[in-house]
C-alpha cells in the first residue's frame, strides 16, 4: 500500500510518466526532476534579467520625454509645438511595448541638440489618424469605324436595349477614382471608392468589413461590389482589358453587380482554400433587378470558391455563384417594361503560372447562364405578354507577361448553348450569335502606371455591321498603395 501511495505522489508532484521499479531508479527520477527545476529557475532568472533591462529602457525613455517637455516649456513654444510634444508623449507607451533594445535610441535622443519647435511638429504629424487616400486616373482615346449615330443606337437584340455606351469617339475620361481606407476601431475596417466623372461624383463603394469575428467568419456591409463571379469584384482600372466581356455587359452591365446590402463569408479551416459566401442585396442593378422591383431587399447571392496550388508556380482558382431576385426593367426591348424574376448562374476557372516576377501567364474563363420569367408590358399598346428567357454567355481570356510588357487575347460570345426567348409561347429568333475578338498590348512602367492598346473585332449587334474598335488607355495611380486582388 505504501509503495502505491509514494508512487502516486511522485507521479502527481513531478507529472513524470516513467515508472521506476527499484529504489535506485526512483532516486534517479527525483534527481532528474530536481535538475529540471533548477534549469527552470535559471530560465526564469534570465527572463527577470530581460525584464529588468526593459524597465531600464522605459525609465530612460521617460527621462528623455521629461527632458524634452522641459525644453519645450523653456522655449515657450507656440501651440503647434506643444501639440507635437503631447503626441510624442502619447507615442511613448507604444514604444515601451514594441521597442526593446532601445537604449541606443534613447542615448541618441539625449545627446542630440535640442529640437526646435518646428522639428518636433514635423516629426510627429504625418497624419497618423488620416485614412489612406489614393487617386487613380483612367482615360482613353477611342476609335470606331461606326458613325456617331450608329454607335448611339447600338444594343444587343434579345438581350439588352437602351444602355448608353461608355465611350465616345475621341478622348474619354472614364473616371478619376478616389479611394479611402482605414481601420475604424479594432472591430471594423472601412473602405470607400468614389469615382469622379464629368457627370459628377458617384459612390461606387462604401462598406465596412469586420476584423474580429471568430471561426473564420467575416461580415461586409454597405454598398459594395458583389462576390458573384470572378470579374465582378474587380474595379475597371484593375481589369485586364479596357471593357467588360459580353456576358457581363449583357447580364449585369459594365458596372457589374454593385449593390447596397450585407455579405457574410466563411473561410473554413481546411487544408485547401475554400470560401463560402452569402449576400442579401437591395437589388438595384438596372439590368438584372431594378430599384422598383421589390419593396425592400429583393436580391440574394451565394457563392463557393476554392483554390489549389500545384508546386510553387501554378495556382488554380475555381468557383460557382448564383444570384437571384425580383426584376423590373425597361432594358429588354424598346417601349417595354419587364417585371418578373431573374436568376443568374456563374462558373469560373482561373489558372495562373508565375515562375518569376519577370514572367507570368494567366487564363481566365467564366460561363454565365440567365433564367428569367415574367410579364413584358408594352408601353405603347399596354398589351401584356409573358416572357421567358434562358440565355447564356461565355468568355475566355489569356494574358502573357514578359518583364514590363503584357499581351492579352480574349474571346467573348453570347447564346453559346441556349438562346431561348419565348414571348407568350412564341419563340423569337433574334439573329446570329453576338461575339467579339480582342487583342491587347500593355506597357507597365511601374506598378502605378499602365498604358494599354486594345483592338476589338466586334460582331455583337446581330447584324451585318462589323465594329472595329481601337482603344488607347492610360491608367495612373497616386497616393496610398492599393491592395492587389488575387
Amino acid at each position, binding site marked *: 500500500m505504501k509503495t502505491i501511495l509514494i508512487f502516486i505522489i511522485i507521479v502527481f508532484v513531478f507529472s513524470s*510518466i516513467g515508472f521506476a521499479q527499484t529504489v535506485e531508479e526512483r532516486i534517479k527520477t527525483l534527481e532528474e526532476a530536481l535538475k529540471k527545476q533548477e534549469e527552470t529557475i535559471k530560465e526564469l532568472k534570465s527572463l527577470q534579467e530581460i525584464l529588468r533591462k526593459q524597465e531600464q529602457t522605459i525609465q530612460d525613455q521617460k527621462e528623455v520625454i521629461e527632458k524634452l517637455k522641459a525644453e519645450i516649456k523653456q522655449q515657450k513654444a507656440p501651440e503647434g509645438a506643444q501639440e507635437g510634444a503631447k503626441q510624442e508623449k502619447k507615442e511613448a507607451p507604444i514604444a515601451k511595448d514594441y521597442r526593446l533594445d532601445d537604449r541606443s535610441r534613447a542615448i541618441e535622443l539625449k545627446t542630440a541638440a535640442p529640437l526646435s519647435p518646428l522639428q518636433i511638429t514635423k516629426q510627429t504629424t504625418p497624419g497618423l489618424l488620416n485614412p489612406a487616400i489614393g487617386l487613380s486616373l483612367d482615360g482613353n482615346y477611342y476609335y470606331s469605324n461606326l458613325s456617331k449615330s450608329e454607335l448611339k443606337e447600338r444594343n444587343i437584340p434579345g438581350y439588352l436595349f437602351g444602355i448608353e455606351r461608355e465611350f465616345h469617339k475621341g478622348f474619354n475620361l472614364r473616371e478619376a477614382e478616389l479611394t479611402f481606407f482605414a481601420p475604424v476601431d479594432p472591430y471594423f475596417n472601412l473602405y470607400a471608392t468614389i469615382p469622379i466623372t464629368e457627370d459628377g461624383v458617384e459612390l461606387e463603394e462604401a462598406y465596412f468589413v469586420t476584423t474580429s469575428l471568430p471561426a473564420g467568419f467575416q461580415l461586409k456591409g454597405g454598398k459594395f461590389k458583389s462576390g458573384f463571379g470572378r470579374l465582378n469584384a474587380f474595379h475597371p482600372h484593375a481589369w485586364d482589358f479596357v471593357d467588360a466581356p459580353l456576358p457581363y455587359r449583357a447580364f449585369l452591365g459594365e458596372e457589374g453587380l454593385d449593390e447596397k446590402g450585407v455579405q457574410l463569408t466563411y473561410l473554413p479551416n481546411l487544408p485547401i482554400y475554400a470560401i463560402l459566401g452569402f449576400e442579401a442585396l437591395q437589388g438595384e442593378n438596372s439590368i438584372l433587378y431594378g430599384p422598383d422591383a421589390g419593396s425592400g431587399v429583393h436580391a440574394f447571392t451565394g457563392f463557393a470558391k476554392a483554390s489549389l496550388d500545384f508546386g510553387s508556380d501554378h495556382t488554380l482558382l475555381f468557383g460557382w455563384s448564383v444570384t437571384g431576385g425580383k426584376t423590373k426593367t425597361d432594358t429588354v426591348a424598346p417601349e417595354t417594361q419587364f417585371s418578373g424574376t431573374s436568376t443568374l448562374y456563374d462558373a469560373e476557372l482561373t489558372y495562373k503560372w508565375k515562375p518569376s516576377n519577370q514572367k507570368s501567364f494567366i487564363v481566365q474563363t467564366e460561363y454565365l447562364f440567365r433564367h428569367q420569367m415574367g410579364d413584358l408590358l408594352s408601353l405603347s399598346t399596354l398589351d401584356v405578354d409573358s416572357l421567358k428567357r434562358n440565355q447564356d454567355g461565355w468568355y475566355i481570356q489569356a494574358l502573357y507577361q514578359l518583364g514590363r510588357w503584357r499581351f492579352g487575347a480574349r474571346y467573348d460570345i453570347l447564346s453559346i448553348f441556349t438562346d431561348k426567348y419565348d414571348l407568350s409561347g412564341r419563340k423569337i429568333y433574334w439573329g446570329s450569335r453576338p461575339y467579339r475578338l480582342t487583342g491587347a498590348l500593355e506597357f507597365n512602367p511601374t506598378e502605378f502606371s499602365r498604358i494599354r492598346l486594345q483592338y476589338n473585332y466586334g460582331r455583337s449587334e446581330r447584324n451585318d455591321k462589323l465594329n472595329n474598335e481601337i482603344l488607347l488607355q492610360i491608367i495612373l495611380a497616386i497616393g496610398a498603395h492599393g491592395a492587389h486582388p488575387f
Partner: protein
Amino acid sequence: MFKRICLSVTCIFFFATPAFAKFNIAATLPWIGSIANEIGQDKVHVTSFVKPNQDPHFVAAKPSMILDVRKADILMYNGMDLEIGYLPVLVESSKNPKIQPGNPGNFDCSKFIDPIEVPTSVDRSMGDVHPQGNPHYQLSPKNILRVAEGIAVILSKTDPENAGFYMKNFSSFRKRLEKKQREWSAIPLRGKTFVAYHKFFEYLALELGFEIVGYIEPKPGIPPSASYVEKLVDMIRRAKPNAILSLSYYPQKEVKFLSEKTGVKGIIVPHDVGETEKVKDWFSLIDEVLKSLE
C-alpha cells in the same frame, strides 16, 4: 492490483495532458521563418509563404497564403512597406482576428531595428523609396539580434508556458551570433567598394565597412534603360569597384554586359534562406553572402 493502479494513473495523466498543440507562425520571408524557428524550435510550427527565389517587392497574393495566415497564431513580416502590395489583402481575407493590425499576433519585425536611409521627403518620382527607410535589413547582424529578441519576447508573452524555453533559445542565439560576428568582422571587407543592382547591401556595408559606390537601377525599383547601362560602363571604369553585386531575381543581362565591358566581376549574392542548398538558415545566409563578397 499494483500494476493495474499504476496503469490507470498513467492513463489519467496521459489523457489529462492536453494534446500538445504547436504554436503556428506564418512568416512572409524565409529568413523571418528561419529566426522564428531558431527561437521556437520544436514548440512552434513555421510556414513562410514567399519563395526564396522570389522578388519580395512583387509578391502576388495567393489564396493558399490566405490559408496560412488563417491558421497563424502570429504573423511575422519584414515591415517598412515591403509587403504592402499583398499583405493587407491577406490579413483581411484571412478572417483571423489574432493577426489583425493592433493585436499582438501582428508582428512587424522592423519595429525592432534601427532604420537607415529614412527620407526626409519622398514621392514616387524617386522610384520605390520606402518612407520608413531602407527595408532590406535582413543581412544586418546588429538588427537581426534585436529582431530575434523581439521574437523571443512575443513568443514568451503569447505562449507563457514555454517562456523559459524561448528565452533560453534566444540567449544561445545571441551567444552564437556574437561568436559569429567576431568571425565575420575578421573577413577583410573594410574599404572594398562595390556596385549593386539594388539598395540591398546598405546595412551590411555600414556594419562591415565596405562601400556601395553605385547602382545599376537608375532609381530604386526602376529597371535601367540601354542608354543608362552605357553610362554605367564609364562610371564603373572610373570607380573601379571590387565587384558588381546582384540578386537572383533581377535580370542578369545588364550585370553580364557590364562585367564583360569593364572586366569587373559580377556576383549573384544569395539574399534569403533556402535560396541554395548551402543557405540552410540565417547564419549560413550571412556566411554565404560574405563568402561571395570576399
